[in-house]
């Protein structure tokens, strides 16, 4: 990172005007942009406007937010929903997991009423999902109702990592047993991540 200005919370950065807008790590009060983080000042031009941001050098204090792509591990499956632990938000690994939940109707986009939870997820699976809402006091509500979302990593009964063979099936490379899953059409960025993890 280039040598840049260090800011601390409460520091006045600039006047909010037509030419600029404020991004992460800042807040606006009385027409001025202030820093809300201890970190480095970053400016970049987006849509002809100068985006003022403050970035922390440390891993960020991310909590799952609506619309974020998260990586989670299934812990519990029952006919109506399954529970999971959110391990990552985007690329950032969380220090401590958050509880999440996928309801039966949020598993896939079509033929929602034919969904059998146990044929979509099993405990131990690693999934990629999107945060639908903040849910109740207990857990976030997630969805996998997109092609790119679903199971990315699953272990067969024989104990081997399975390979996807269709959007709803995975196969164990040793026993050649097929198991049903809601498989994600994995994008490159997530594969890289999964490799790091195992």
């Amino acid at each position: 990172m280039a040598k840049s200005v260090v800011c601390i919370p409460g520091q006045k950065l600039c006047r909010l005007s037509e030419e600029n807008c404020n991004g992460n790590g800042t807040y606006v009060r009385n027409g001025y942009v202030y820093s809300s983080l201890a970190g480095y000042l970053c400016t970049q031009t987006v849509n002809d406007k100068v985006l003022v941001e403050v970035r922390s050098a440390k891993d960020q204090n991310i909590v799952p937010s609506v619309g974020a792509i998260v990586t989670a591990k299934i812990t519990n499956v029952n006919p109506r929903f399954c529970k999971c632990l959110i391990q990552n938000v985007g690329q950032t690994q969380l220090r401590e997991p958050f509880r999440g939940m996928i309801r039966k109707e949020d598993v896939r986009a079509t033929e929602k009423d034919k969904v059998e939870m146990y044929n979509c997820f099993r405990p131990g699976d690693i999934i990629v999902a999107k945060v639908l809402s903040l849910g109740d006091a207990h857990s976030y509500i997630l969805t996998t109702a997109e092609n790119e979302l679903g199971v990315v990593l699953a272990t067969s009964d024989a104990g081997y990592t399975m390979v996807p063979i269709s959007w709803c099936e995975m196969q164990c490379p040793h026993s050649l047993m097929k198991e049903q899953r809601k498989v994600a059409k994995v994008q490159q960025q997530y594969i890289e991540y999964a490799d790091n993890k195992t």
Partner: protein
Amino acid sequence: MPIDTRRITGPETSQTPYSFCKEPEKKALLDENQERWDGRSHDQMRPTFLRAGVISQAKGSAYIELNKTKVICAVYGPREITRREEFSMKGQLTCEFKFATFSCQLRRQHQPDNQEKDLSIQLLEALEPAVCLHKFPKAQVNVYATVLENDGSALAAAITCASVALAYAGIEMYDLVLSASLRLAGDIVLLDPSENEEFKPQMDLQVNNGSLTVGYMPSLNQISALTSSGECQLDVLTKAIKLCIENCQKVYPVIQHCLMKSKNLEE
């Protein structure tokens, strides 16, 4: 620290030898030349040492030293709220203020006593207005402040220290919270009182005898903590609050500098 109720805490009736002193040593507030015992002028703070990032496991931490008053502070989170609470779009901040058992002249108990509970609430209420709680819905941030050695003005030190630790942890905040305390005794105003200068209720009868601690957000110009004890006239107290604010503004650049330096060191 979790409270262990099964812990055996020595005999209940043990007493400190100081209470058996024939005549408790009564030191006057000021020496014969109306100077403070440690040689400071009346409106002079003790030299302050502050460093952020002293506990590697914590998300953020800070250590402050005002001569013999030493406070260490750690910040954890944001993490999931484990206790069952009602749904809230706001995050939660928790604070624990603890005197180490050996930090004061009299030994303190492991379990938080009323004073510590009160100070915990005051620390929380001082920091809460500064933290952007809406940035981490459903999650909590825990702040633990431990006084290692108490030589007066421990709450003020803890507030400053905790706000630096929060900022260092990368928790979004509207502003830093700085704190100052002072002692009023008649016409005398002593800034940043040490243990023997602090207000103790059994002292001689006079008006305007008390102490005051103010938590202040310099950039927002807001008071986030205010606490006084003892008996004072209103205008004296008003003046004292202004003095505390002035002092917070005076320290602000120093704290700012310290935080910037520790941020740079991280690279």
